[in-house]
């Protein structure tokens, strides 16, 4: 997992003869340079120069092209809300006037260079006293002197270097700082310590077969064992008791109940044996069981700290907004926003609430909400839904609905978000109940037998049965199987929220896909030029024009030109970007226009709207041709779909887009697949619900916030992300875009997991038969228990680990 995180470098198209930015590695031309190094933009160059001035060029030596490109410019007021005392109070963990502590979440952290730079911030600004990063949690701790540098300046410095901290409502509402759960480690440590020492003190007992010869010494050993077992029983094992008790109170025999019973009986009988001097007890077995079980749970619960699977809309919204009151700008927290308030939204800022444009022109990018990356034009008086990002110049807006009631957040008021998924549905639970039942029958049978023949052996045989037949081997097999499978999934870039997802995944028979960003790349696209042949000079002209633009289509064309031609930028005069229309400018005294059909030709006739991915070109009023930009399907997706369909999965596509791709999709998915377009977030949720009501087990693959409801409603919701450090909606698993083509293998592997567990159950039942055959005859000596317990535990752990690893290899994971 760690290696996967470290190698998480940005996806880049590498082709021969293309210059890459020294800072961020993006393909670029040779126009911007410093110290014989080329940069893709002024932003990257500035960061390089800043680092160079401060002697921090080691940054570029630790990893190759480690920088993070800063898209667009920050307005000077972007972080103004951080000067607000209320916001400061929420964010700072500690502040005494001389020193302030703050923790930031930096999703961009991706390599050793990042760690190095972030921990050397103090060389750039003397106000920063100390910084320390936690790579796996993508967390940065900063101690700074508030009299020398403000919180806002710290954040601005980070944002400038490319590490804009993620500050959201969600984090501010939570308690300051994170609390690491160290209790589990303490418990394992204590149990391990006691287990080993009890074992050591029991050795004389094992080798002398219960007769040491020196009664005084035997007594010392036994009582020392008793003392050592107390922390195991009362401290390390208390989670099992608490969980079992909670289950019993709800009249539900959960998996911890038989374990708690076994621990209790073992402890009770051992105390009796030791105090009465009749034996040495089974304390070694008891502490061993507790130790192994705790290790098993810890192994299973090793989750991915840097991922968050429970984000709701709060995580997506900024903390502060700029309020306009009597012509003055004021910063306010977003939760204080009320309908009727007037707000200012600057370039690259998010619309915090449903609002009407009152001044200026909205040019809204909804990619974050819908996955659709063509910006929408909103004129004065038009309603803009929360969640969009303003790409144009600053606009003034009037709030219609406060944040909690806005269109996008309403989805979260749906009941789906109140429910817990997969609660106690695991097939291990019925197993453990049968196990307990059979165990009681055997113990009862033994008691009945001995009551006729030798009544003194009733209690020894019954308690021995309960001691030796602990279901821990059952539980260990499940925890280690799932734990190891999670690791294998992680290696293949599918990060599961928890182990229960594996079981849900193994039952899947219906798969629902979102289109944009899931089946297709969200940032990459196919660019096809059609029209008159362009000369190199004309290509350079077009390149120079799109370079100035922030429109996503311009960016796509620019990247395409860089990798396919040896471009050289030219000076652009009178550059103008007309929202919703296109670009124009004068290059080498020629009028150049790029944009929609209507914008270029002035023709009122609208072309088919499904062809909106066309960018037309005219030079000095002469029409040249157009770039056709279409979704690019992920590598291997078509093959993946083909492997899925004959295997009796029902396939569906629900997309929020228009149906331009319908024919293409239908040919990939085959005639049986149902393909729907123009689906709202609520439609998607309802669709999943309908499938579930038909009794199907549904896997949903989606990426945007618009899939959030559907992801939550499905049995397994998988969020697809280009870059795992990005934000993903609430889900059961996060899948790196490069892993989408392995979907079939993932499901097959999840199914093999159940087989492995069944086999290990059979193995553990064999051990139980051996142990029970001793115990019902009242022949179970501490020695046999002490051998059987670790042998069964270790052999089962080894078996499931090898079996799951082998199966992963077999499935091509």
């Amino acid at each position, binding site marked *: 997992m*760690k290696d996967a995180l470290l190698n998480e470098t940005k996806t880049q198209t590498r082709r021969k003869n293309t210059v890459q930015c020294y800072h961020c590695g993006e393909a670029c031309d040779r126009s911007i340079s410093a110290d014989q190094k080329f940069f893709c933009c002024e932003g990257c160059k500035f960061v390089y120069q800043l680092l160079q001035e401060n*002697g921090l060029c*080691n940054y570029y030596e*630790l990893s190759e092209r480690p920088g993070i490109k800063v898209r667009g410019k920050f307005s000077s007021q972007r972080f103004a809300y951080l000067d607000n005392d209320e916001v400061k109070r929420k964010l700072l*963990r*500690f502040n005494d006037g001389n*020193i302030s*502590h703050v923790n930031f979440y930096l999703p961009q952290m991706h390599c*050793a260079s990042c*760690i*190095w730079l972030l*921990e050397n911030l*103090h060389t750039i600004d003397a106000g920063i*006293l*100390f910084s*320390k*990063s*936690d*790579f*796996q*949690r993508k967390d940065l*701790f900063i*101690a700074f002197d508030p009299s020398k540098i403000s919180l806002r300046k710290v954040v601005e410095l980070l944002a400038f270097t490319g590490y804009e901290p993620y500050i959201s409502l969600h984090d501010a509402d939570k308690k300051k700082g994170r609390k*690491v759960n*160290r209790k589990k*480690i*303490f418990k394992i*440590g*204590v149990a391990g*310590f006691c287990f*080993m*020492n009890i074992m*050591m*003190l029991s050795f004389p007992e094992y080798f002398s077969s219960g007769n040491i010869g*020196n009664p*005084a*010494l035997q007594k*010392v050993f036994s009582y*020392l064992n008793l003392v050592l077992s107390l922390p195991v029983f009362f401290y390390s094992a208390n989670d099992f008791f608490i969980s079992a008790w909670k289950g019993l109170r709800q009249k539900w025999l959960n998996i911890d109940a038989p374990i708690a019973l076994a621990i209790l009986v073992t402890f009770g009988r051992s105390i009796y044996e030791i105090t009465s001097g009749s034996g040495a007890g089974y304390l070694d077995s008891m502490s061993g069981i507790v130790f192994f079980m705790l290790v098993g749970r810890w192994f299973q619960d090793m989750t991915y700290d840097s991922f968050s699977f429970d984000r709701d809309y709060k995580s997506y919204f900024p903390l502060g907004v700029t309020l306009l009151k009597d012509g003055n700008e004021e910063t306010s927290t977003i939760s204080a926003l009320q309908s009727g308030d007037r707000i200012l939204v600057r370039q690259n800022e998010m619309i915090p609430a449903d609002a009407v444009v009152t001044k200026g022109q909205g040019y809204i990018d909804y990619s974050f909400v819908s996955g659709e990356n063509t910006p929408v034009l909103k004129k004065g008086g038009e309603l803009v839904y929360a969640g969009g990002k303003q790409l144009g110049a600053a606009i003034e807006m009037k709030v219609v609905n406060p944040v909690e009631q806005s269109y996008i957040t309403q989805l979260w008021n749906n009941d789906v978000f109140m429910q817990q998924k997969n609660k106690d549905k695991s097939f291990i639970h019925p197993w453990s109940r049968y196990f307990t039942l059979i165990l009681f029958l055997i113990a009862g049978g033994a008691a009945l037998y001995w009551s006729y023949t030798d009544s003194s052996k009733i209690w020894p045989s019954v308690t021995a049965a309960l001691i030796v037949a602990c279901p821990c081997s059952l539980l260990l097999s499940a925890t280690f199987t799932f734990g190891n499978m999670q690791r294998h999934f992680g290696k293949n870039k599918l990060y599961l929220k928890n182990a229960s997802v594996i079981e849900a995944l193994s039952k899947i028979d219906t798969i629902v896909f979102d289109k944009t960003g899931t089946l297709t790349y969200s940032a990459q696209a196919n660019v096809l030029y059609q029209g008159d042949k362009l000369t190199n000079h004309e290509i350079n002209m077009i390149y120079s024009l799109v370079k100035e633009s922030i429109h996503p289509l311009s960016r796509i064309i620019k990247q395409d030109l860089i990798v396919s031609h040896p471009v050289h930028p030219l000076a652009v005069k009178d550059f103008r970007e007309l929202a919703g229309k296109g670009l124009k400018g004068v290059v080498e005294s020629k009028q150049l226009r790029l944009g929609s059909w209507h914008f270029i030709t002035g023709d009122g006739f609208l072309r088919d709207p499904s062809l909106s991915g066309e960018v037309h070109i005219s030079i000095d009023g002469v029409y040249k041709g157009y770039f056709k930009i279409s979704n690019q399907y992920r590598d291997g997706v078509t093959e993946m779909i083909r492997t899925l369909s004959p295997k009796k999965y029902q396939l569906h596509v629900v997309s929020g887009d228009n149906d331009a791709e319908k024919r293409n999709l239908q040919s990939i998915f085959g005639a049986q697949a149902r393909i729907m377009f123009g689906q709202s977030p609520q439609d998607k949720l309802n669709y999943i619900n309908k499938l579930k009501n038909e009794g199907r087990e549904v896997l949903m693959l989606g990426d945007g916030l618009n899939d959030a409801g559907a992801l939550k409603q499905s049995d397994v919701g998988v969020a697809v992300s280009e870059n795992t450090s990005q934000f993903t909606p609430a889900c059961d698993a996060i899948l790196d875009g490069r892993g989408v083509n392995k979907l079939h293998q993932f499901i097959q592997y999840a199914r093999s997991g159940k087989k492995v567990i069944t086999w290990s159950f059979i193995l553990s039942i064999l051990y139980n038969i051996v142990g029970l055959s001793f115990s019902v005859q009242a022949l179970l000596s501490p020695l046999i228990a002490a051998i059987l317990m670790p042998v069964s535990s270790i052999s089962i752990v080894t078996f499931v680990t090898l079996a799951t690893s082998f199966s992963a290899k077999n499935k091509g994971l």
Partner: protein
Amino acid sequence: MSVLILLIAFSILIAGGFLIAFIWAVKEGQYDDDYTPSVRMLFDDKPGSDNKSSLLPKQ
């Protein structure tokens, strides 16, 4: 035989010392982040740079 009891007392005392050391290490946060320090130790210190770890938050 009393020498055996003495030895056992010693051994438990030493083992207990290790347990305390373990608890201390966990409390100091040595198990909180098991990855970053392995990268950090490979960075070269510039001569003359001062150690500021005393500013770490007490947890």
